[in-house]
């Protein structure tokens, strides 16, 4: 019994060590956003400062890259959110010929290596002489996000009771009214979770974007390009702010879910 207790404690310490390992580079990133670095290399600690938060937007093309990233992520969230939710609803609610093929394509898209996806999409754009840039990045992000949204929404739809919709129809509601007042509110948590996932996938994507960006910069691409000459502290600050926003959204989301579960 005592051995078991000890073993439990050991595993707990071990779990915390793994978590520490996972967050270590984040801590390094946040810390060096406060570094009072003098030269071009932000590598050695030279004292605490807040000045990089003040000079956050002083590097024009970095700011532009961040704006591009946010814009593309927002558009991806909306487009992939809508298209993916429609697929998820169809697959979760209806039995029909061809659903197996759709599931297979989505499984392939989720498990496909990013570099293969990025390279083959570039092959398409090169073959048809499509100019690379903002729009090709957006196309690629929607492409790889749709399946993730669809899977999330499908899981939600499958747990729902369709008798509520039948009841609404029996009470004289048309298909659109039923969808708007009954189906949509019920699947909305899934739609929201899927859309947020699409946003997160889009803003972080590097590999597929690298293949289809042409000269257009996103935040990860800019960082990649700057590694050889040294990263300015502004990158750390932007990373910190994105991280903080993500934590905040997750916490608010968790609180709402908890309140709803208690109510």
């Amino acid at each position, binding site marked *: 019994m005592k051995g078991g207790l000890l073993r439990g404690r050991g595993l707990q310490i071990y779990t915390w060590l793994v978590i520490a390992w996972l967050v270590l580079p984040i801590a390094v990133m946040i810390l060096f956003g406060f570094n009072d670095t003098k030269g071009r290399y932000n590598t050695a600690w030279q004292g605490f400062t807040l000045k990089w938060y003040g000079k956050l937007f002083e590097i024009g093309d970095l700011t532009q890259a961040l704006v591009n990233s946010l814009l593309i992520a927002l558009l991806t969230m909306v487009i992939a959110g809508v298209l993916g939710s429609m697929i998820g609803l169809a697959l979760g609610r209806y039995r029909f010929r061809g659903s197996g093929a759709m*599931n297979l394509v989505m499984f392939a898209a989720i498990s496909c290596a990013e570099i293969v996806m990025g390279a083959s999409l570039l092959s398409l754009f090169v073959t048809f002489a499509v100019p690379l840039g903002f729009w090709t990045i957006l196309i690629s992000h929607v492409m790889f996000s749709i399946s993730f949204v669809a899977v999330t929404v499908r899981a939600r739809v499958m747990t729902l009771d369709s008798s509520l919709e039948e009841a609404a129809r029996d009470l004289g509601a048309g298909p659109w009214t039923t969808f708007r007042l009954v189906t949509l509110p019920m699947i909305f948590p899934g739609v929201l979770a899927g859309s947020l996932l699409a946003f997160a996938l889009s803003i972080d994507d590097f590999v597929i974007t690298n293949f289809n960006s042409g000269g257009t910069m996103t935040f990860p691409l800019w960082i*990649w390009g700057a590694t050889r000459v040294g990263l300015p502290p502004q990158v750390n600050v932007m990373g910190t702010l994105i991280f903080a926003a993500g934590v905040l959204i997750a916490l608010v989301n968790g609180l709402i879910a908890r309140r709803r579960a208690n109510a």
Partner: protein
Amino acid sequence: MSRLRASLTPYLLLFPGGLWLAIFFVIPTVVMLSLSLQSGDVVNGYVFTFNWHSYVDGITTYHDQIVRSVVYGTISTVIQIVIGFPVAYWIAFKGGNRKSIYLFLLLLPFLVSFVLRTISWQFFLSDNGMLLGPLKSLGLVPEDFHILATSAAVIGGLAYNFLPFMILPIYVALERIDPRVLEAAQDLYASKTQIFLRIVLPLSLPGVFAGVLMTFVPATSDYVNASVLGGTGNTMIGNVIQNQFLINQDYPTASALSFTLMALLLVGIFVYAKALGTEDVLEVAAR
């Protein structure tokens, strides 16, 4: 009329998203296959000639990188199972009402860009950086000791970056185990080891399989870790594909290598699924 509409509804719902996937995911794969069989160069253009040479040349020239990718991908995946399984186990069985907090902490890295996290490691592990700098000035490690530009750094980076994708599916599989099954085993005088080996481990295998699928594929095809942490001597097949596509613009070779990588990954997953011996494992993964 209404019946017709009801039977059309799922297709109407599928159409826009399905079309997007068809044009930008399925067709590109076919285009790339055709590209890999063309010959020519970037100046004079390419023609389709059933030119298998791109495959032969690509594989013979970049043999080292292909082997290295598979080896690094495999080692990092095994490391992730070894590191991740106990974590998933502890959270699933001992996490109590704080499970969601632990899961949240495991997902924190995803709120920071993948590239930025990897560069953060480069920074932390650099020759006179936060880790080695103090150790060297204390004389604990020799002056020329380095971690970056070694295969260990690349494998470590791969294991780090994809670890949450390993832990989560294992956690989900373990969490689904009905505690009454474990109690029943205990009542029937099974030892702790027996319970683990004969109940917990087999029931966790679908999760391990999903985890391997989600980590082996990105780890094997990755080129960010090899570039940032591996220096020049540890390039993987992803680095080659990236260079051929984006810098040399040798599209046939690059496409042939992409296809080779895809085939390797598919074969790897298939063999692994067979070795595990359960068809339902694939079904679980597909769900």
